């Protein structure tokens, strides 16, 4: 047997089985479980030989295949009442077909997804002052994933606001320095202020990110508390640790 490197990437055991069925030209409606199992094991061996990690999900399905194979080898008693249980082979075929359906439909969905990206909208226009007065009495703690979402929005706005401005600069600014800068500015800021206010003095993405890391640290140390509104804007107010 020649040396063969398979570089195909599979989305999981079901994806791999569909590939093997196709490759071996098996009839999915009259599935030859023995061939499928052998090929499946072969593939896992190849992966191991290539020192690729075999994810546990592949082993789970392998167990199902082998269980089926072993059951077939054992003599079956006539009166064994397993009629109410779905035949594991039928179950596997059903799962494969079901998975194949969704895999198939993603192609159409992806086309729409790509198409939609050629059509753009402008960011919302709103008055920050009005927003601020509405938000003030409404402090809630967000979770880190909300913060991540909000930060994405900030970065997108940065991208939109300076599309034609290309600069190459290198500035060193550590989060620690940035925290000192922010603390110095805190007393001049209103009780509640937005992330946008905080980054007014930043002009590149590096400083945005450093500022973001800085406020994460400050939130952790209770210098600041943050809240995120429905429009994914980040608002801050002084925390319990502020003097």
């Amino acid at each position: 047997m020649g040396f063969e490197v398979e570089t195909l990437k599979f989305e999981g055991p079901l994806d791999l089985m569909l590939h093997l069925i196709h490759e071996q030209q098996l009839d999915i409606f009259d599935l030859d479980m023995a061939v499928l199992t052998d090929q499946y094991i072969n593939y896992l061996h190849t992966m191991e030989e290539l020192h690729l990690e075999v994810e546990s999900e592949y082993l789970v399905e392998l167990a199902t295949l082998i269980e089926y194979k072993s059951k077939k080898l054992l003599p079956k008693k006539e009166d064994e009442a397993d009629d109410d249980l779905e035949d594991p082979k039928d179950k596997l075929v059903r799962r494969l077909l079901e998975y194949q359906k969704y895999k198939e439909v993603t192609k159409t969905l992806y086309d729409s997804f790509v198409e939609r990206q050629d059509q753009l909208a402008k960011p919302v226009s709103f008055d920050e002052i009005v927003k601020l007065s509405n938000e003030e009495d409404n402090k809630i703690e967000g979770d880190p994933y909300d913060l991540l979402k909000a930060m994405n929005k900030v970065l997108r706005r940065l991208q939109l606001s300076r599309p034609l401005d290309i600069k190459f600069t290198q500035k060193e600014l550590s989060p620690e320095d940035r925290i000192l800068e922010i603390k110095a500015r805190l007393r001049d800021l209103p009780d509640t202020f937005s992330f946008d206010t905080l980054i007014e003095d930043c002009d590149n993405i590096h400083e945005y990110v450093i500022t973001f890391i800085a406020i994460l640290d400050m939130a952790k140390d209770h210098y600041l508390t943050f809240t995120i509104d429905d429009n994914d804007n980040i608002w801050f107010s002084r925390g319990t640790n502020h003097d």
Partner: protein
Amino acid sequence: MIEEFEIGQEMSEEDKQRWHDVQDMISRVETEDHEDVAQPTNMEAIVEGLLYIVGEDGAKLEQLASVIDRSLEDTKIILENIRTKYAAETFGIELVGYGSVYKFISKKAVFPYAQELFGASKQNTLSQAALETLAIIAYKQPITRVEIEELRGVSAEVMLRKLLARNLIREAGRSEAVGRPILYEVTEEFMDSFKLYTLNELPDLPEYSKDEENDNLFE
């Protein structure tokens, strides 16, 4: 203001006249009340203005209806009129209502020029795993993590968290099943990203049966 000519430079009478004309025009433009801009008299124009302001966030039918104090049906008609108006080839933007959120977006034909203007932009992508997970949720929602995993045969935990962070899915309460697992459903953002007005517009899932040629199954 336009810079004055350099001192000492000779100006012909004709040039001087043109210079004055231009100055005249500029001062008129700067001081005039722009009375040629008529204020809108119908709701259609007001809604159009609102849609301009809300931008990519868009506005829901219910929101617009309550703001302009009209019934949902009336508002729908207003929106449809605006949509038809902008669908004409004389406009560069169009009105869409994916997931019942209405917003103006640029027409497809504008995109190549936008690329020219902004330089090549990086497009968002979705992995095959993300697409499969989204497809399963969209067709079967509300659905639990375990059900998704059963269908795809792989763990879905990390993927669900990524999709939540991208605002493509959200939690939709809890299932009555043992352990009361969290249910997931797709968001308006998903509808917008995949150009869907309602979930009924999702393409039909292919049906495989024994009678069919097996080749169809794999194209």
